[in-house]
Protein backbone atom coordinates (compact mmCIF):
# COMPACT_ATOMS: atom_id res chain seq x y z
CA UNK A 1 0.00 0.00 0.00
CA UNK A 2 0.97 3.61 -0.40
CA UNK A 3 2.51 5.27 2.62
CA UNK A 4 -0.45 7.62 2.83
CA UNK A 5 -3.03 4.83 2.80
CA UNK A 6 -4.64 6.13 5.99
CA UNK A 7 -5.93 9.08 3.98
CA UNK A 8 -8.94 8.43 1.76
CA UNK A 9 -8.11 8.21 -1.97
CA UNK A 10 -10.19 11.30 -2.86
CA UNK A 11 -8.45 13.40 -0.24
CA UNK A 12 -5.12 11.99 -1.35
CA UNK A 13 -5.67 13.20 -4.93
CA UNK A 14 -6.61 16.70 -3.74
CA UNK A 15 -3.54 16.89 -1.54
CA UNK A 16 -1.27 15.67 -4.33
CA UNK A 17 -2.68 18.20 -6.80
CA UNK A 18 -2.23 20.95 -4.22
CA UNK A 19 1.40 20.01 -3.67
CA UNK A 20 2.10 19.91 -7.40
CA UNK A 21 0.59 23.34 -8.00
CA UNK A 22 2.54 24.64 -5.07
CA UNK A 23 5.85 23.22 -6.24
CA UNK A 24 5.22 24.46 -9.78
CA UNK A 25 4.56 27.97 -8.54
CA UNK A 26 7.55 28.10 -6.28
CA UNK A 27 9.93 26.68 -8.86
CA UNK A 28 8.53 28.94 -11.57
CA UNK A 29 8.58 31.93 -9.24
CA UNK A 30 12.15 31.61 -8.10
CA UNK A 31 13.58 31.13 -11.57
CA UNK A 32 11.67 33.85 -13.37
CA UNK A 33 10.96 36.54 -10.78
CA UNK A 34 13.74 38.46 -9.10
CA UNK A 35 11.34 39.93 -6.52
CA UNK A 36 10.79 36.52 -4.96
CA UNK A 37 13.37 35.15 -2.57
CA UNK A 38 12.37 31.53 -2.03
CA UNK A 39 14.85 31.08 0.80
CA UNK A 40 12.53 33.12 3.09
CA UNK A 41 9.68 30.75 2.28
CA UNK A 42 11.64 27.56 2.84
CA UNK A 43 13.16 28.91 6.05
CA UNK A 44 9.76 29.90 7.41
CA UNK A 45 8.64 26.34 6.83
CA UNK A 46 11.65 24.21 7.67
CA UNK A 47 13.55 26.52 10.04
CA UNK A 48 10.87 28.81 11.41
CA UNK A 49 12.04 31.59 13.68
CA UNK A 50 11.15 31.45 17.38
CA UNK A 51 8.53 34.13 16.73
CA UNK A 52 6.82 31.98 14.11
CA UNK A 53 7.01 28.87 16.30
CA UNK A 54 5.54 30.86 19.15
CA UNK A 55 2.84 32.13 16.79
CA UNK A 56 1.90 28.62 15.73
CA UNK A 57 1.81 27.45 19.34
CA UNK A 58 -0.40 30.39 20.29
CA UNK A 59 -2.77 29.80 17.39
CA UNK A 60 -3.16 26.14 18.31
CA UNK A 61 -3.35 26.69 22.04
CA UNK A 62 -5.82 29.56 21.88
CA UNK A 63 -7.99 27.66 19.38
CA UNK A 64 -8.19 24.56 21.55
CA UNK A 65 -8.89 26.41 24.78
CA UNK A 66 -11.41 28.77 23.17
CA UNK A 67 -13.19 25.85 21.50
CA UNK A 68 -13.40 23.86 24.72
CA UNK A 69 -14.76 26.92 26.49
CA UNK A 70 -17.19 27.42 23.61
CA UNK A 71 -18.49 23.86 23.87
CA UNK A 72 -19.00 24.13 27.63
CA UNK A 73 -20.78 27.47 27.31
CA UNK A 74 -22.74 26.11 24.35
CA UNK A 75 -24.03 23.17 26.40
CA UNK A 76 -25.19 25.48 29.18
CA UNK A 77 -26.69 28.01 26.78
CA UNK A 78 -28.52 25.24 24.93
CA UNK A 79 -29.95 23.87 28.17
CA UNK A 80 -30.81 27.41 29.23
CA UNK A 81 -32.68 27.97 25.99
CA UNK A 82 -34.72 24.84 26.64
CA UNK A 83 -35.25 25.44 30.35
CA UNK A 84 -38.71 25.67 31.88
CA UNK A 85 -37.59 28.52 34.16
CA UNK A 86 -38.06 31.76 32.20
CA UNK A 87 -35.04 33.72 33.52
CA UNK A 88 -32.72 30.92 32.31
CA UNK A 89 -34.30 31.09 28.88
CA UNK A 90 -34.06 34.87 28.77
CA UNK A 91 -30.41 35.01 29.80
CA UNK A 92 -29.45 32.27 27.34
CA UNK A 93 -31.29 34.07 24.57
CA UNK A 94 -29.70 37.41 25.45
CA UNK A 95 -26.24 35.88 25.44
CA UNK A 96 -26.73 34.21 22.07
CA UNK A 97 -28.39 37.30 20.63
CA UNK A 98 -25.56 39.61 21.65
CA UNK A 99 -22.60 37.47 20.63
CA UNK A 100 -24.07 36.38 17.33
CA UNK A 101 -25.37 39.81 16.52
CA UNK A 102 -22.17 41.81 16.89
CA UNK A 103 -18.88 41.47 15.00
CA UNK A 104 -16.09 39.61 16.76
CA UNK A 105 -13.80 42.59 16.13
CA UNK A 106 -16.14 44.88 18.03
CA UNK A 107 -16.35 42.37 20.87
CA UNK A 108 -12.57 42.09 20.99
CA UNK A 109 -12.04 45.82 21.18
CA UNK A 110 -14.89 46.40 23.57
CA UNK A 111 -13.93 43.73 26.08
CA UNK A 112 -10.17 44.06 25.73
CA UNK A 113 -9.84 47.85 25.75
CA UNK A 114 -13.32 49.28 26.23
CA UNK A 115 -14.05 48.04 29.71
CA UNK A 116 -10.48 48.77 30.72
CA UNK A 117 -10.68 52.36 29.44
CA UNK A 118 -13.87 52.84 31.42
CA UNK A 119 -12.07 51.59 34.50
CA UNK A 120 -14.45 48.68 34.95
CA UNK A 121 -12.00 45.83 34.71
CA UNK A 122 -8.32 45.43 34.10
CA UNK A 123 -7.12 42.26 32.42
CA UNK A 124 -4.32 40.79 34.56
CA UNK A 125 -1.10 39.17 33.44
CA UNK A 126 -0.96 35.65 34.75
CA UNK A 127 2.29 33.87 35.46
CA UNK A 128 1.89 30.15 35.90
CA UNK A 129 5.25 28.44 36.26
CA UNK A 130 7.15 28.79 32.97
CA UNK A 131 4.03 30.15 31.25
CA UNK A 132 3.50 33.86 31.08
CA UNK A 133 0.00 34.66 29.90
CA UNK A 134 -0.22 38.22 28.66
CA UNK A 135 -3.43 40.16 29.27
CA UNK A 136 -4.26 40.27 25.56
CA UNK A 137 -3.88 36.50 25.26
CA UNK A 138 -6.13 35.94 28.26
CA UNK A 139 -8.70 38.41 27.00
CA UNK A 140 -8.54 37.16 23.41
CA UNK A 141 -8.98 33.52 24.39
CA UNK A 142 -11.92 34.23 26.67
CA UNK A 143 -13.68 36.47 24.17
CA UNK A 144 -13.19 33.94 21.37
CA UNK A 145 -14.55 31.19 23.62
CA UNK A 146 -17.55 33.19 24.75
CA UNK A 147 -18.27 34.18 21.15
CA UNK A 148 -17.96 30.56 20.08
CA UNK A 149 -20.34 29.45 22.83
CA UNK A 150 -23.14 31.44 21.25
CA UNK A 151 -22.71 29.52 18.00
CA UNK A 152 -22.21 26.17 19.75
CA UNK A 153 -25.47 26.69 21.65
CA UNK A 154 -27.56 26.16 18.54
CA UNK A 155 -25.47 23.16 17.49
CA UNK A 156 -25.79 21.54 20.91
CA UNK A 157 -29.50 22.31 21.02
CA UNK A 158 -30.02 20.59 17.69
CA UNK A 159 -28.07 17.62 19.03
CA UNK A 160 -30.16 17.39 22.19
CA UNK A 161 -33.39 17.67 20.20
CA UNK A 162 -32.24 14.85 17.94
CA UNK A 163 -32.32 12.39 20.86
CA UNK A 164 -35.54 10.40 21.08
CA UNK A 165 -37.79 11.81 23.85
CA UNK A 166 -38.33 8.20 24.92
CA UNK A 167 -34.75 8.23 26.23
CA UNK A 168 -35.54 11.05 28.62
CA UNK A 169 -38.75 9.34 29.71
CA UNK A 170 -36.94 6.08 30.35
CA UNK A 171 -34.27 7.73 32.47
CA UNK A 172 -36.85 9.79 34.35
CA UNK A 173 -38.89 6.67 35.04
CA UNK A 174 -35.77 5.12 36.61
CA UNK A 175 -35.62 8.01 39.05
CA UNK A 176 -32.81 9.96 37.40
CA UNK A 177 -32.77 13.71 37.90
CA UNK A 178 -32.62 16.21 35.05
CA UNK A 179 -28.86 16.59 35.48
CA UNK A 180 -28.22 12.86 35.48
CA UNK A 181 -30.49 12.39 32.47
CA UNK A 182 -28.60 15.05 30.53
CA UNK A 183 -25.13 13.92 31.53
CA UNK A 184 -25.51 10.18 31.31
CA UNK A 185 -28.22 9.64 28.72
CA UNK A 186 -28.96 12.60 26.45
CA UNK A 187 -25.61 14.36 25.88
CA UNK A 188 -23.67 11.16 25.06
CA UNK A 189 -26.22 10.41 22.38
CA UNK A 190 -26.37 14.00 21.18
CA UNK A 191 -22.58 13.93 20.71
CA UNK A 192 -23.00 11.94 17.50
CA UNK A 193 -24.98 14.77 15.96
CA UNK A 194 -22.86 17.53 17.47
CA UNK A 195 -19.40 16.32 16.38
CA UNK A 196 -19.57 17.08 12.61
CA UNK A 197 -20.58 20.75 12.93
CA UNK A 198 -18.28 21.06 15.93
CA UNK A 199 -15.39 20.03 13.67
CA UNK A 200 -16.41 22.72 11.27
CA UNK A 201 -16.43 25.26 14.07
CA UNK A 202 -12.96 24.27 15.18
CA UNK A 203 -11.65 24.59 11.64
CA UNK A 204 -13.03 28.13 11.63
CA UNK A 205 -11.59 28.77 15.06
CA UNK A 206 -8.06 27.94 13.87
CA UNK A 207 -8.34 30.70 11.28
CA UNK A 208 -10.35 33.17 13.35
CA UNK A 209 -7.53 33.41 15.89
CA UNK A 210 -5.80 35.64 13.34
CA UNK A 211 -8.28 38.36 14.31
CA UNK A 212 -6.64 38.47 17.73
CA UNK A 213 -3.75 40.31 16.04
CA UNK A 214 -5.90 43.41 16.33
CA UNK A 215 -5.59 43.37 20.11
CA UNK A 216 -1.88 42.57 19.89
CA UNK A 217 -1.71 38.81 20.32
CA UNK A 218 1.40 37.54 18.52
CA UNK A 219 -0.26 34.52 16.96
CA UNK A 220 0.80 33.11 13.60
CA UNK A 221 -0.67 35.86 11.43
CA UNK A 222 0.71 38.67 13.57
CA UNK A 223 4.15 37.05 13.89
CA UNK A 224 4.28 36.63 10.11
CA UNK A 225 3.19 40.19 9.62
CA UNK A 226 5.93 41.52 11.88
CA UNK A 227 8.58 39.33 10.22
CA UNK A 228 7.43 40.52 6.81
CA UNK A 229 7.70 44.09 7.97
CA UNK A 230 11.34 43.57 8.86
CA UNK A 231 12.40 41.63 5.79
CA UNK A 232 9.96 42.90 3.14
CA UNK A 233 9.50 39.22 2.18
CA UNK A 234 5.72 39.67 2.23
CA UNK A 235 4.98 37.18 -0.53
CA UNK A 236 7.25 34.46 0.78
CA UNK A 237 6.33 34.73 4.45
CA UNK A 238 2.57 34.93 3.97
CA UNK A 239 2.78 32.01 1.56
CA UNK A 240 4.52 30.13 4.36
CA UNK A 241 1.84 31.26 6.86
CA UNK A 242 -0.83 29.92 4.48
CA UNK A 243 1.00 26.61 4.43
CA UNK A 244 1.07 26.51 8.24
CA UNK A 245 -2.65 27.24 8.44
CA UNK A 246 -3.31 24.58 5.81
CA UNK A 247 -1.26 22.07 7.77
CA UNK A 248 -3.27 22.78 10.91
CA UNK A 249 -6.71 22.66 9.26
CA UNK A 250 -5.82 19.61 7.17
CA UNK A 251 -4.49 17.82 10.23
CA UNK A 252 -7.68 18.63 12.08
CA UNK A 253 -9.66 17.38 9.09
CA UNK A 254 -8.08 13.95 9.53
CA UNK A 255 -8.76 13.92 13.23
CA UNK A 256 -12.35 14.93 12.60
CA UNK A 257 -13.08 12.31 9.97
CA UNK A 258 -11.48 9.69 12.21
CA UNK A 259 -13.81 10.66 15.07
CA UNK A 260 -16.82 10.70 12.76
CA UNK A 261 -16.06 7.26 11.37
CA UNK A 262 -15.74 5.93 14.90
CA UNK A 263 -19.04 7.53 15.81
CA UNK A 264 -20.92 6.34 12.72
CA UNK A 265 -20.30 2.69 13.49
CA UNK A 266 -23.05 0.88 15.32
CA UNK A 267 -25.57 3.69 15.16
CA UNK A 268 -29.14 2.51 15.41
CA UNK A 269 -30.28 1.00 12.15
CA UNK A 270 -26.90 1.17 10.45
CA UNK A 271 -26.08 -2.06 8.70
CA UNK A 272 -22.38 -1.51 9.35
CA UNK A 273 -22.90 -1.55 13.07
CA UNK A 274 -24.81 -4.80 13.07
CA UNK A 275 -22.52 -6.45 10.58
CA UNK A 276 -19.39 -5.43 12.42
CA UNK A 277 -20.45 -7.77 15.18
CA UNK A 278 -17.94 -8.42 17.89
CA UNK A 279 -15.72 -5.49 16.91
CA UNK A 280 -18.37 -2.89 17.70
CA UNK A 281 -19.13 -3.37 21.40
CA UNK A 282 -15.94 -1.80 22.66
CA UNK A 283 -15.86 1.57 21.01
CA UNK A 284 -19.07 3.03 22.26
CA UNK A 285 -18.30 2.07 25.78
CA UNK A 286 -14.88 3.62 25.46
CA UNK A 287 -15.84 6.73 23.62
CA UNK A 288 -18.98 7.60 25.48
CA UNK A 289 -17.67 6.76 28.89
CA UNK A 290 -14.89 9.26 28.24
CA UNK A 291 -17.42 11.74 26.90
CA UNK A 292 -19.80 11.55 29.80
CA UNK A 293 -17.05 11.94 32.29
CA UNK A 294 -15.68 15.02 30.58
CA UNK A 295 -19.14 16.51 30.45
CA UNK A 296 -20.14 15.31 33.87
CA UNK A 297 -17.40 16.06 36.28
CA UNK A 298 -19.43 14.76 39.21
Amino acid at each position, binding site marked *: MTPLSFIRPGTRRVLLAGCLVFVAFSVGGCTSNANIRPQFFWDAIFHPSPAIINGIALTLGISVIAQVLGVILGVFAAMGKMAKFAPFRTSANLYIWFFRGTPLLVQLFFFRFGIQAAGLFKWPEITAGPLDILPEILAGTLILGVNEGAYMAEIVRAGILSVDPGQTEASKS*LGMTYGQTMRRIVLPQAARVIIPPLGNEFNNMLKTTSLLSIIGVMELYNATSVAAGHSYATFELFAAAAVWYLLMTTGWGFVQSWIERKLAKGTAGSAAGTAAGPS*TPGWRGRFFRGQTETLGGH
Partner: protein
Amino acid sequence: MTVPNISTNLLGAIGGVPRPDVDVVVDARDVNKYFGRLHVLKDVSIQVKRQETVVIIGPSGSGKTTFIRCINHLEKIQGGRIFVNGHLIGYRETPAVGRIGRPIAKVPVVGRRLSRSVGATKLVEDREKNVARQRQEIGMVFQRFNLFPHMTALDNIIEAPIHVRGMDRDEAMVMGRALLERVGLAAKEDVYPNQLSGGQQQRIAIARALAMKPALMLFDEPTSALDPEMIGEVLEVMKELAREGMTMIVVSHEMGFAREVANRVVMMDEGVVVEEGTPAQVFGSPTQERTKTFLSKIL
Protein backbone atom coordinates in the same frame (compact mmCIF):
# COMPACT_ATOMS: atom_id res chain seq x y z
CA MET B 1 -38.13 -19.05 17.72
CA THR B 2 -38.57 -21.00 20.91
CA VAL B 3 -39.64 -19.26 24.04
CA PRO B 4 -36.43 -18.81 26.00
CA ASN B 5 -35.64 -20.11 29.40
CA ILE B 6 -37.41 -17.83 31.81
CA SER B 7 -36.38 -18.65 35.32
CA THR B 8 -39.03 -19.36 37.91
CA ASN B 9 -37.41 -17.13 40.47
CA LEU B 10 -37.26 -13.75 38.72
CA LEU B 11 -37.62 -11.64 41.81
CA GLY B 12 -34.96 -13.68 43.59
CA ALA B 13 -32.47 -11.71 41.49
CA ILE B 14 -33.41 -8.52 43.29
CA GLY B 15 -33.62 -10.06 46.72
CA GLY B 16 -37.21 -11.22 46.73
CA VAL B 17 -40.59 -9.59 46.18
CA PRO B 18 -40.44 -5.90 46.99
CA ARG B 19 -42.79 -5.18 49.88
CA PRO B 20 -44.88 -2.08 49.37
CA ASP B 21 -45.50 -0.10 52.57
CA VAL B 22 -49.26 -0.01 52.25
CA ASP B 23 -52.01 -2.39 51.21
CA VAL B 24 -53.34 -0.17 48.46
CA VAL B 25 -50.25 0.41 46.34
CA VAL B 26 -51.94 2.66 43.81
CA ASP B 27 -54.78 4.89 44.87
CA ALA B 28 -55.91 7.18 42.07
CA ARG B 29 -58.79 9.44 42.99
CA ASP B 30 -60.82 11.47 40.51
CA VAL B 31 -57.92 12.05 38.16
CA ASN B 32 -58.57 14.66 35.52
CA LYS B 33 -56.26 15.46 32.66
CA TYR B 34 -56.50 17.81 29.72
CA PHE B 35 -54.44 18.11 26.57
CA GLY B 36 -55.25 21.72 25.80
CA ARG B 37 -59.04 21.70 25.57
CA LEU B 38 -59.25 17.95 25.11
CA HIS B 39 -60.46 16.28 28.30
CA VAL B 40 -58.58 12.97 28.19
CA LEU B 41 -59.15 11.64 31.73
CA LYS B 42 -62.46 12.27 33.41
CA ASP B 43 -62.61 11.52 37.13
CA VAL B 44 -60.65 8.29 36.81
CA SER B 45 -60.41 6.39 40.10
CA ILE B 46 -58.54 3.11 40.31
CA GLN B 47 -57.17 1.23 43.29
CA VAL B 48 -54.52 -1.46 42.98
CA LYS B 49 -53.79 -3.63 45.99
CA ARG B 50 -50.52 -5.20 46.95
CA GLN B 51 -49.49 -8.07 44.66
CA GLU B 52 -52.41 -7.43 42.36
CA THR B 53 -52.17 -7.40 38.56
CA VAL B 54 -54.56 -5.01 36.90
CA VAL B 55 -54.92 -4.98 33.12
CA ILE B 56 -56.35 -1.88 31.51
CA ILE B 57 -58.05 -2.42 28.15
CA GLY B 58 -59.89 -0.11 25.83
CA PRO B 59 -59.86 1.34 22.33
CA SER B 60 -57.00 3.61 21.29
CA GLY B 61 -57.50 7.15 22.44
CA SER B 62 -59.37 5.97 25.52
CA GLY B 63 -56.75 7.49 27.83
CA LYS B 64 -55.33 4.25 29.24
CA THR B 65 -51.72 5.00 28.28
CA THR B 66 -52.07 8.59 29.46
CA PHE B 67 -53.41 7.30 32.77
CA ILE B 68 -50.48 5.04 33.56
CA ARG B 69 -48.08 7.79 32.49
CA CYS B 70 -49.73 10.00 35.11
CA ILE B 71 -48.95 7.39 37.75
CA ASN B 72 -45.22 8.14 37.55
CA HIS B 73 -45.80 11.77 36.67
CA LEU B 74 -44.58 11.61 33.09
CA GLU B 75 -47.81 13.54 32.51
CA LYS B 76 -49.17 16.30 34.70
CA ILE B 77 -52.71 16.07 35.99
CA GLN B 78 -55.12 18.93 36.38
CA GLY B 79 -57.34 17.42 39.01
CA GLY B 80 -57.48 14.61 41.55
CA ARG B 81 -54.79 12.82 43.48
CA ILE B 82 -52.59 9.81 42.74
CA PHE B 83 -50.99 8.03 45.67
CA VAL B 84 -48.39 5.33 45.10
CA ASN B 85 -47.18 3.37 48.09
CA GLY B 86 -48.73 6.02 50.31
CA HIS B 87 -47.02 9.01 48.65
CA LEU B 88 -48.80 11.70 46.69
CA ILE B 89 -47.19 11.61 43.26
CA GLY B 90 -45.85 14.70 41.56
CA TYR B 91 -47.51 17.29 43.76
CA ARG B 92 -47.44 18.86 47.19
CA GLU B 93 -50.48 19.94 49.12
CA THR B 94 -50.16 23.53 50.22
CA PRO B 95 -52.63 25.77 52.02
CA ALA B 96 -54.96 27.17 49.41
CA VAL B 97 -53.44 30.59 49.17
CA GLY B 98 -53.19 32.77 46.15
CA ARG B 99 -50.19 34.86 45.43
CA ILE B 100 -51.45 37.83 47.35
CA GLY B 101 -52.87 35.81 50.19
CA ARG B 102 -56.18 35.28 48.45
CA PRO B 103 -57.77 31.91 49.18
CA ILE B 104 -58.25 29.79 46.08
CA ALA B 105 -61.07 27.63 47.34
CA LYS B 106 -64.39 29.15 48.17
CA VAL B 107 -64.28 28.15 51.81
CA PRO B 108 -65.03 30.39 54.75
CA VAL B 109 -61.93 32.11 56.01
CA VAL B 110 -61.24 31.69 59.71
CA GLY B 111 -59.70 34.44 61.74
CA ARG B 112 -57.79 37.41 60.52
CA ARG B 113 -55.18 35.45 58.68
CA LEU B 114 -56.29 35.17 55.13
CA SER B 115 -53.70 32.56 54.47
CA ARG B 116 -55.46 29.77 56.38
CA SER B 117 -58.71 28.52 55.05
CA VAL B 118 -60.34 25.46 56.54
CA GLY B 119 -59.16 22.21 55.06
CA ALA B 120 -58.80 23.73 51.64
CA THR B 121 -55.53 22.85 49.99
CA LYS B 122 -54.17 23.36 46.59
CA LEU B 123 -51.83 21.16 44.61
CA VAL B 124 -48.47 22.54 43.63
CA GLU B 125 -46.13 20.59 41.41
CA ASP B 126 -43.42 19.02 43.50
CA ARG B 127 -39.71 19.71 43.16
CA GLU B 128 -38.01 17.78 40.41
CA LYS B 129 -35.78 15.95 42.90
CA ASN B 130 -38.74 14.74 44.93
CA VAL B 131 -40.51 13.54 41.83
CA ALA B 132 -37.36 11.69 40.82
CA ARG B 133 -37.24 10.04 44.25
CA GLN B 134 -40.86 8.93 43.96
CA ARG B 135 -40.21 7.45 40.55
CA GLN B 136 -37.55 5.16 42.00
CA GLU B 137 -40.34 3.05 43.45
CA ILE B 138 -42.21 2.80 40.18
CA GLY B 139 -40.81 0.69 37.36
CA MET B 140 -42.00 1.43 33.85
CA VAL B 141 -41.78 -0.60 30.66
CA PHE B 142 -42.46 1.24 27.42
CA GLN B 143 -44.01 0.20 24.16
CA ARG B 144 -40.83 1.07 22.30
CA PHE B 145 -38.45 -0.34 24.95
CA ASN B 146 -36.39 2.89 25.18
CA LEU B 147 -33.20 1.08 26.09
CA PHE B 148 -30.15 3.35 26.17
CA PRO B 149 -28.49 2.65 22.79
CA HIS B 150 -25.03 3.77 23.92
CA MET B 151 -24.86 1.21 26.71
CA THR B 152 -24.57 -2.57 26.74
CA ALA B 153 -27.41 -4.71 28.03
CA LEU B 154 -25.75 -5.02 31.42
CA ASP B 155 -24.91 -1.30 31.61
CA ASN B 156 -28.54 -0.48 30.84
CA ILE B 157 -29.60 -2.53 33.85
CA ILE B 158 -27.01 -1.30 36.35
CA GLU B 159 -27.09 2.38 35.33
CA ALA B 160 -29.87 3.48 37.67
CA PRO B 161 -29.01 1.23 40.64
CA ILE B 162 -25.50 2.69 40.63
CA HIS B 163 -26.22 6.33 39.84
CA VAL B 164 -29.63 6.71 41.45
CA ARG B 165 -29.63 4.22 44.32
CA GLY B 166 -25.88 4.60 44.91
CA MET B 167 -25.34 0.86 44.80
CA ASP B 168 -21.82 -0.48 44.71
CA ARG B 169 -20.74 -1.27 41.14
CA ASP B 170 -19.73 -4.88 41.78
CA GLU B 171 -22.90 -5.56 43.71
CA ALA B 172 -24.96 -4.02 40.91
CA MET B 173 -23.20 -6.20 38.34
CA VAL B 174 -23.97 -9.34 40.30
CA MET B 175 -27.61 -8.34 40.46
CA GLY B 176 -27.65 -7.27 36.79
CA ARG B 177 -26.22 -10.60 35.65
CA ALA B 178 -28.72 -12.48 37.79
CA LEU B 179 -31.54 -10.50 36.20
CA LEU B 180 -30.20 -11.09 32.69
CA GLU B 181 -29.92 -14.78 33.37
CA ARG B 182 -33.46 -14.98 34.66
CA VAL B 183 -34.95 -13.24 31.65
CA GLY B 184 -33.04 -15.73 29.51
CA LEU B 185 -30.34 -13.35 28.21
CA ALA B 186 -27.26 -14.30 30.22
CA ALA B 187 -25.16 -14.46 27.04
CA LYS B 188 -26.06 -10.93 25.95
CA GLU B 189 -24.60 -8.79 28.72
CA ASP B 190 -22.00 -7.11 26.49
CA VAL B 191 -24.31 -6.62 23.52
CA TYR B 192 -25.71 -3.25 22.48
CA PRO B 193 -29.49 -2.86 22.07
CA ASN B 194 -29.37 -2.40 18.30
CA GLN B 195 -28.00 -5.92 17.94
CA LEU B 196 -30.90 -7.46 19.83
CA SER B 197 -34.38 -8.43 18.68
CA GLY B 198 -37.40 -6.52 19.92
CA GLY B 199 -38.35 -9.30 22.30
CA GLN B 200 -34.86 -9.42 23.75
CA GLN B 201 -34.78 -5.63 24.13
CA GLN B 202 -38.10 -5.65 25.93
CA ARG B 203 -36.96 -8.36 28.33
CA ILE B 204 -33.88 -6.26 29.11
CA ALA B 205 -36.11 -3.23 29.60
CA ILE B 206 -38.12 -5.24 32.15
CA ALA B 207 -34.92 -6.30 33.89
CA ARG B 208 -33.77 -2.67 33.91
CA ALA B 209 -36.97 -1.56 35.63
CA LEU B 210 -36.81 -4.45 38.11
CA ALA B 211 -33.24 -3.58 39.07
CA MET B 212 -34.59 -0.58 40.97
CA LYS B 213 -36.63 -2.96 43.19
CA PRO B 214 -39.82 -1.05 42.51
CA ALA B 215 -42.96 -1.43 44.61
CA LEU B 216 -45.00 -1.21 41.42
CA MET B 217 -44.45 -2.03 37.77
CA LEU B 218 -46.22 -0.20 34.95
CA PHE B 219 -46.37 -1.74 31.49
CA ASP B 220 -47.40 0.55 28.64
CA GLU B 221 -48.47 -1.74 25.78
CA PRO B 222 -45.28 -3.78 26.18
CA THR B 223 -45.95 -6.11 23.27
CA SER B 224 -47.52 -3.73 20.73
CA ALA B 225 -44.27 -2.93 18.94
CA LEU B 226 -43.15 -6.56 18.74
CA ASP B 227 -43.21 -9.04 15.91
CA PRO B 228 -45.84 -11.71 16.65
CA GLU B 229 -43.30 -14.46 17.30
CA MET B 230 -41.63 -12.38 20.04
CA ILE B 231 -44.73 -11.52 22.01
CA GLY B 232 -44.70 -14.85 23.83
CA GLU B 233 -41.27 -14.43 25.41
CA VAL B 234 -42.14 -11.03 26.84
CA LEU B 235 -45.53 -12.16 28.14
CA GLU B 236 -43.81 -15.14 29.74
CA VAL B 237 -41.62 -12.82 31.80
CA MET B 238 -44.61 -10.72 32.80
CA LYS B 239 -46.65 -13.77 33.78
CA GLU B 240 -43.82 -14.98 35.95
CA LEU B 241 -43.61 -11.58 37.62
CA ALA B 242 -47.32 -11.59 38.34
CA ARG B 243 -47.14 -15.13 39.70
CA GLU B 244 -44.32 -14.16 42.06
CA GLY B 245 -46.38 -11.37 43.52
CA MET B 246 -45.22 -8.18 41.81
CA THR B 247 -47.82 -5.40 41.89
CA MET B 248 -48.49 -4.52 38.26
CA ILE B 249 -50.60 -2.33 36.03
CA VAL B 250 -50.58 -3.43 32.42
CA VAL B 251 -52.04 -1.56 29.47
CA SER B 252 -52.42 -4.24 26.87
CA HIS B 253 -54.43 -5.71 24.05
CA GLU B 254 -53.30 -9.22 24.97
CA MET B 255 -56.60 -10.67 26.10
CA GLY B 256 -55.11 -14.10 26.65
CA PHE B 257 -52.64 -12.59 29.09
CA ALA B 258 -55.38 -10.64 30.84
CA ARG B 259 -57.53 -13.75 31.21
CA GLU B 260 -54.67 -15.78 32.59
CA VAL B 261 -52.97 -13.46 35.07
CA ALA B 262 -55.10 -10.40 35.73
CA ASN B 263 -56.80 -10.14 39.10
CA ARG B 264 -58.85 -7.35 37.67
CA VAL B 265 -59.59 -5.94 34.25
CA VAL B 266 -60.43 -2.26 33.81
CA MET B 267 -62.17 -1.16 30.64
CA MET B 268 -61.62 2.47 29.68
CA ASP B 269 -63.23 4.47 26.92
CA GLU B 270 -63.11 8.20 26.17
CA GLY B 271 -61.28 8.98 29.39
CA VAL B 272 -63.74 7.18 31.64
CA VAL B 273 -63.54 3.87 33.50
CA VAL B 274 -66.46 2.10 31.84
CA GLU B 275 -66.33 -1.21 33.63
CA GLU B 276 -64.16 -3.02 36.12
CA GLY B 277 -64.13 -6.61 37.34
CA THR B 278 -62.46 -9.99 37.26
CA PRO B 279 -61.44 -11.22 33.81
CA ALA B 280 -64.29 -13.72 33.93
CA GLN B 281 -66.82 -10.96 34.60
CA VAL B 282 -65.50 -8.47 32.09
CA PHE B 283 -64.82 -10.92 29.28
CA GLY B 284 -67.59 -13.42 30.10
CA SER B 285 -70.52 -11.20 30.90
CA PRO B 286 -69.78 -7.54 30.29
CA THR B 287 -72.53 -5.29 31.61
CA GLN B 288 -71.77 -2.22 29.54
CA GLU B 289 -72.61 -1.84 25.87
CA ARG B 290 -69.26 -0.17 25.11
CA THR B 291 -67.36 -3.09 26.62
CA LYS B 292 -69.36 -5.56 24.53
CA THR B 293 -68.71 -3.61 21.34
CA PHE B 294 -65.00 -3.31 22.09
CA LEU B 295 -64.61 -6.98 22.98
CA SER B 296 -66.51 -8.10 19.90
CA LYS B 297 -64.03 -6.19 17.76
CA ILE B 298 -60.95 -7.42 19.49
CA LEU B 299 -61.66 -11.06 20.31
